């Protein structure tokens, strides 16, 4: 399980988009299990399950219809689509909302149905952009255990996040990126180098605490209205 961490605007989403064939890189290659994403897109994409961040879904479909649709696009046999989507909806606590339009889902539910879409064709590699954003703690734990089991069974997960605790508890390896560059990469212990990941991250990215006097006007407002 590989974590990609970095501050806002570091290039996490851009990196993942280029690795999944959504954004054409100016230079360089992306390889998935010996398939070049840009030379052999069909072969590489068949092995990947993708959960992008900030892109719409076909949200005028219900959750069940969306899963069925993704299953068809991914050439999953019809019978498999039915059993897998039922299990996925059950596991992610979306079974009650399978006939609700995705557009009416909350942010967390949308993340979960997106994850289900990424999983339905049983990919070898999962690429998840901010998979835990807006997900409630219970569902978050469910997703964690799904991902852990998936990794134990031989799958690979690449996920981006800016929640250090999450990456620390889940990932085996990680890379810290900022302003489009990799600042550190390796196993969790290598990157941490003795201190906590949070501290190491702040050191790498270059954090300077804002002074006491900044935003002073905010404090005075607590006294008034």
């Amino acid at each position: 399980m590989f974590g990609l961490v970095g501050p806002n605007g570091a290039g996490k989403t851009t990196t993942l988009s280029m690795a999944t064939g959504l954004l054409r890189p100016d230079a360089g290659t992306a390889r998935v299990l010996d398939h070049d994403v840009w030379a052999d897109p069909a072969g590489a994409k068949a092995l990947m399950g993708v959960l992008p961040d900030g892109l719409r879904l076909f949200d005028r479909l219900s959750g069940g219809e969306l899963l069925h649709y993704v299953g068809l696009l991914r050439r999953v046999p019809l019978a498999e689509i039915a059993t897998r989507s039922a299990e996925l909806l059950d596991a992610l606590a979306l079974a009650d909302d399978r006939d609700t339009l995705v557009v009416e889902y909350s942010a967390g539910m949308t993340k979960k149905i997106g994850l289900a879409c990424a999983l339905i064709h049983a990919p070898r590699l999962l690429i998840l952009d901010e998979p835990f954003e807006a997900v409630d703690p219970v569902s978050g734990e469910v997703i964690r255990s799904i991902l852990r089991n998936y990794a134990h069974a031989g799958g690979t997960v690449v996920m981006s996040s800016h929640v250090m605790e999450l990456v620390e508890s889940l990932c085996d390896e990680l890379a810290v990126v900022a302003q489009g560059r990799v600042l550190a990469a390796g196993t969790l212990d290598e990157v941490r180098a003795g201190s906590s990941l949070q501290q190491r991250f702040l050191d790498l990215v270059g954090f300077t605490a804002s002074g006491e006097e900044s935003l002073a006007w905010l404090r005075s407002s607590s006294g008034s209205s």
Partner: protein
Amino acid sequence: MVALLVRLKLTLLKNSLKRSLWRTVGLIIALLYALGIVVVVLAAMVGLRYTSLALTADITVIAYAGLTLGWLLMSMLVFGVDETIDPAKFALLPVRASELLPGLLLAGLVSAPGAATVLVAAGLVIAWARTVPLTLAALVAVPLGVVTCFLLSRAATAACASFLSSRRFRDLAFVAVALVGVAMAIVGNLINAIVSTEVAKLRSSLGDLAIVAGWSPFGWAWAIPADVSRGAWAAAGVHLVLAVGLVGLLWMTWEHFLALGLVSPMDGGGTASKVRDSSSIERLYPATPAGGIAGRALRYWRRDPRYVAGIAGFLIGPIVLIVTQMINPQGNAAIAVFAPSLLGLLVGFSIAQDLSYDGSALWLHISAGISGAEDRVGRVMSTMTIYLPLTVILLVVAMITTGAWHLLVPAVGLAFALMLSALGVGSFVGTLWQWPAAPPGASPFSQGKAGGLPSLLSLTVTMLGTLSLTLPTIALVIWSFSTPWVGYLTVPVGLVCGFIVLRIGMTQGGRILDRRWPEAMLAVSEKAA
């Protein structure tokens, strides 16, 4: 607040121009077009100064009432409302609708059509500046008329948009189409009658039309100087009261819907509705990626207001033509019989804009690794499922109402030749240009954020391409008017040509798409300014 909103509009306009060359080109074209209209109208108004008072009265009332009606129709059916400043964005700020309105009104006039309307309206003063009372009356009429134009489009679209976001939108869209169709048919006949009569009668028809226009809500304001020129002070007073009342009413209507928008900016609301099981759709198409796309698109045809509005828009033309011929006994049956072919011609655009309508949700197709050809085939299947029955229904209606059965064969040949070619051309053109379309939740009346030029280009190329590739069939149809047996050739020739164009369009379009998926993705998801 007024100055703030106008400045906001100018800043937004400036920033959007900085971001995209297309928009700059689009704005310049719009401005040139508007300038052309303004120059023509102003020249006409100067010319009217050399004619009689009565003629000036009739022509100005008709022309300006037409302008007002045009604002309503254009904003409802064609252009939508300029949502550069989206009132919903103010929902979090502590402002009241009544504070926003004057600013929104003025900011709305800061646009090519807004500025053109103000200048065109100023032409009324030029035409009437002959005596002091007439000049004064024109000076009163112009602001009233301009404000009416603008408020009418805003109030009508705001009212309809809130209907459309409700569940009843489908019925309303079709009712609106029917009403507009009938209205246009009547106006068409009126014009027909006017043109076909002699000049003496023409003059009196013009007078009749001016009276109708002047007493319709569209002409109340514009008729004031005309009344004054006749010395009909009572009529002028009544028109003034009516015009002011209309502005007030529209103002309150708009304020009402704006206030609603400020407290409920998000569509949908709390009630999470369930959809009915529609697995029958899945059995309609094969269980392949293309079949999946077709099924998904068919669901969108029913659930996405943009597609519903699209069907309604495409049906207007043929329905108007058929209705006009129905109520006009001396009409030409051929026009009604060939009207359904128009639908085939328009279908191409529907397919050409399909990728843009998907928006950033298109990533799913790309990351699933489906081929461009599968994408094309799926979209063609669903579009056919919608428009093939509609064309057949229109053909049957046209045949029954006109009874021109001898034209049945060429009409069928032309309709299907056009539809197949349009689907092929649309499949191909749709891969060349994409643009960020308004998302499905947005009002179908709001303008595509940057759609402008690429969508216009796509429309033009699709239309011209379809027409030129259907030329063999069109030629046969024309020949069949003089040599009836040729009509029987139109069906085989039309079908064969159509299927060839469709096949080439889908495979070549798919090939382009295979190369351009990431670029298409970038084009449809360009962040709205």
